[in-house]
């Protein structure tokens, strides 16, 4: 049998318009999930820094659970499991956004915690000694400095989460990978199509890296 494989560039190019129909889903789930994840991360990150155990423990439990289980299991649980509990179906896109939100939120909590802890205690003491309240000290002194340090790890998490959306093909979300699978089912050009899919992901993540680098550079020169 002739097993000589030849990469068919035409097949790869031809698949692109069909694949790009999945792009809005990939971007929407990533963006929506990360925005909510960022808010969750701030909330639970700050709670995990609290001295009182009844604030700290729930935050730690949340972080450990969502960091310690696979996001694939989490989305299957949300999509197939939760509807039994709440008595109503959840559509795949919503389930995907929720999964990205809670998963990235757990990692972002740790980013927030690390960022805040990295600011020298003297900064807080200086604020308090000037008569600022604890909240003012945090908001005007600690947070702006912590946030600047959080930008690189936040960008890192955004890239991870964007790639994680590829898993949601399993619950039928028409994102990039799912579009690829559907296309391949008709054309049997797996190598070329997955190659095109990979290039599209790379395009998204490289653009994001570039934007982050520009932003980081700007906020540094604005110091």
């Amino acid at each position, binding site marked *: 049998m002739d097993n000589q494989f030849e990469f068919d560039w035409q097949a790869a190019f031809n698949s692109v318009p069909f694949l790009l129909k999945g792009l809005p889903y990939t971007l929407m789930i990533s963006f929506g999930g990360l925005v909510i994840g960022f808010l969750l991360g701030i909330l639970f990150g700050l709670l995990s820094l609290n001295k009182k155990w009844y604030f700290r423990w729930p935050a730690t439990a949340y972080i450990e659970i969502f960091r310690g289980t696979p996001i694939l299991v989490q989305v299957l649980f949300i999509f197939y499991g939760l509807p039994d509990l709440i008595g109503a179906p959840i559509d795949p896109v919503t389930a995907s956004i929720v999964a990205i939100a809670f998963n990235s939120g757990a990692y972002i909590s740790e980013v927030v915690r690390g960022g805040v802890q990295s600011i020298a205690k*003297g*900064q807080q003491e*200086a604020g308090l000694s*000037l008569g600022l309240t604890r909240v*003012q000290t945090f908001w*005007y002194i600690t947070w702006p400095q912590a946030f600047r340090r959080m930008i690189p790890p936040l960008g890192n998490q955004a890239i991870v989460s964007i790639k994680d959306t590829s898993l949601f093909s399993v619950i039928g979300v028409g994102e990039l990978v799912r579009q690829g699978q559907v296309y391949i089912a008709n054309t049997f050009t797996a190598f070329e199509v997955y190659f095109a899919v990979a290039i599209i992901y790379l395009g998204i993540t490289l653009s994001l890296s570039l934007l982050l680098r520009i932003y980081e550079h700007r906020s540094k020169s604005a110091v």
Partner: protein
Amino acid sequence: MPYIVNIEKLNKHFGQLHVLKDIDLQVTQGEVLVIIGASGSGKSTLIRCINGLEEYDSGELKVDGHKLEPKGKSQQALNTIRKEVGMVFQQFNLFPHLTVQRNIMLAPLKVRNKNTQDAAKLADKLLARVGIANQAHKHPEQLSGGQQQRVAIARALAMEPRLMLFDEPTSALDPEMVGEVLDVMRDLAKEGMTMLVVTHEMGFA
């Protein structure tokens, strides 16, 4: 004459270590009190108790008539006291994300509710007073150590404190910069500021 600081039988432990043992200390208005002593003898801890950056275990501590309870039990008094007591740290602790002028403006804006214009005017006046009027729009990292410490003094003065605490203000400075900071402190003392200074600078003492 009422004391600005009145400490009686103050005790403070760090675990097993009894750092402050039955301390009595009275400071009157306009007095400049210098505390010297070996490292680790509790000098810094003592002045940090006065504005509540450290809690103490027992005894009595009054600042300008406001009683500060042991173990951080008096948040209300603490807020009042911190507005009246300025502090200068060994490591300056300037805010690196703000300009020099903004460093000084922050507390007047947020604690005294001054408007931006007045706060900026105050900052410029204080910067002139500590001899670095031309550095207002730089960031702290662009200044020398001595200049940074002078900004820190100006920042504390912006709250118009009744008492200034200096926690080893020259210990982190290169020798040639010690003088400029001590000069500012001497001027302050001459103008009648009540000061409590922890230092190793025997010449100043």
